[in-house]
């Protein structure tokens, strides 16, 4: 999958060895993760960035007429809106917050983002069977991979 081009990519300011990144898709299932990310950022006194990755893998179901670029654009807008609600939530709790939206395969984009932004901590959701995007084994492998490839500490909440 391609990444968003300049037009439809939303980036937070580079963090550089500090800051907390929370990779989330929003929704009720992500509430504990978001809460943990806000708490972590507050404890560390670091800015918080909510990262939304629009994985368009589901578009393979679309047989007729559906365009991936159109889906990407709509997902970007939706991702921005969802992330903005989380930013407001964090700001209400006194945490400096921003968001970023990317498109592509979740794993690849997450690692690429962490390598670019070099935050100190990544907060990831702990999967619940009914709402999980990643199953526990995949998540464990992903965490290991992130730590090896980026050196960023991972909190699974």
């Amino acid at each position, binding site marked *: 999958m391609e990444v968003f081009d300049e037009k439809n990519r939303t980036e937070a300011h580079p963090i550089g060895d500090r800051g907390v990144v929370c990779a*989330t*898709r*929003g*929704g*009720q*299932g*992500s509430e504990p993760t978001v809460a943990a990310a806000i708490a972590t950022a507050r404890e560390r006194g670091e800015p918080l960035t909510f990262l939304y990755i*629009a*994985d368009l*893998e*589901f*578009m*393979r*179901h*679309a*047989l*007729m*007429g*559906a*365009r991936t*670029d*159109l*889906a990407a654009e*709509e*997902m970007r*807008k*939706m991702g*921005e*809106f*969802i992330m*903005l*609600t989380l930013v*407001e939530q964090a700001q209400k709790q006194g945490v400096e917050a921003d968001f970023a939206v990317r498109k592509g395969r979740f794993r690849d984009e997450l690692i690429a983002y962490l390598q670019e932004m070099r935050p100190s901590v990544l907060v990831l959701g702990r999967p619940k069977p*009914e*709402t999980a*995007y990643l199953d526990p084994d995949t998540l464990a492998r992903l965490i290991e991979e992130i730590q090896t490839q980026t050196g960023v500490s991972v909190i699974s909440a």
Partner: protein
Amino acid sequence: MHKHAVWILTISLVLALFLCLGLPRDVLAADPRPTIGGRLLDSHGEPVYHAQVSVWDGNDLIGEAESNADGSFLVILERVPQRELRVHIRRPHFHDWEWIGDSHALRQLQGSGGESGYLFIPDVQMQRRVTIGFWVAVSTFVGLLILIALEKLHNTLSALLGMAVIFLVSYIGAPINSDFFILDFERALQYINFEVFFLVLGMMIVISVVEGTGIFQWLSYWAYRIAQGRVWLLSIVLMSLTGLASALLDNVTTMLLMTPISLQIALALQLNPLALLIPEVLASNVGGIATMVGTPTNILIGSYANLSFSDFLRNLTPGVLLSHVVLIAYVQIVFRKEYRSVGTALSATLEEKLAENARITRPVELRKAGVVFIGMLVLFVLGERIHLGPAVTALIGAILLLVWIRPNVDEILVSVDWTTLLFFIGLFVCVGALEEVGFIGQIATALGNLVGEHLTFTVVLLTYAAALLSMVVANIPFTAAMLPVVAYLTRHLPGAENYMLFYALSIGAAMGGNGSLIGASANLVTAGIAERAGYPISYKDFMRYGLPSMILTVTVGMLWLLFHF
């Protein structure tokens, strides 16, 4: 410029005169040679076309011809047979037929009073033969359905693989054993419905312009503003908007546009987004069949049965509207708890963001696309009076729109979903193979025997069977395979000549998609977007709401057909 136009007009007129005056004389000139004519039918009384009819005088071949689409054939002989008149008819998947003429037949061929001889062979009944090719064609189609259902291979690749298997077996297997033969390339081309191909292509080009304008997002946002927190009202407006959009665009594109903005609206209202998204996708699958261009299944049905856009408007749209009203009532009942509780107002930032996400992005293109689209709708309706088919209208509309807005043609061509068009080609060949080997004829006969002469029973059976099968089987291949079966029933069932069975198939195949999450591509795309926003739609959840709605809407649509016809 003016001079050139005069020249072109003159040349065209001369050509037209030449064709009108010259050609018929050649074509209709009486041939002095003896001829043999007749008609070939299968055991169901259906014409057998493309059969090779050869006439022999002892061991000498003296005439050869191919049977026509209506089963008729006419063989012009080199001479009147001197030794023995033998007629041999051969067609793959049928037993060979041979006839030896008696002295009376020979006398007829000799003619009398200076006129050339003519021999008419009464209707010849050809007997079907189940070959290895039969089983290969059936297995290939079943394999195609399984591959699509299990998502082991992309839909288009599955259909193309099916086509490749059929050609491979026909060309490589047939020289080893002729029973392997299914159909050749030339024959396969005849099964490709180019009307469907060009109608889908034209609509895709127009949709690619409309979908990027933001019109549906803008309308959804205004529905949210106008509803002022009354979620029941908002859901009615959004469902109706989705239904209307699906009737004009394809369902997947509609849900791709409607789902993200509806999700944002739901979050703005602190409402579970599924309470808006599930009703919308149900409305999309129902509304899609309101017009001939709303779903691929309707395009297939309309093109195959030669039904016009107006035919769908007259015979199906009222039933779809009734189903839509019933669906709205159902949704209001099952989601009443969710619709009662709405949240607090949005912050100024989020309100601004929502408005920004729902703005019209390309107003000039929207205006032009709107004008062309309305023009296309008028031509879709009125075109039948001047024999202007929907495919030609869609192509004209698409080209005029492109010329008017002058987009980057490369970008537009990239936005055309060629994979879908290739899917149709592969599918047509696979279904053609089924027809060629006689499988579809067998299904038609079995169904015909089952329903007897009971039209009402047939409508009920066809609608519900199509709906139930569409819950688990991809409805496009299913519809494509059912078309010849429905055509057979339409020809043979008393009272079915009004094509109501085709509309029954349309209702069942499309509304059946509401019965399960995998029943329609639009369901899966909606679920995919919702899942990426943290609101997954499980199979169980979808079926809990979708299955009762499917039974309700299919029943209402079917009752409409029974009442209307």
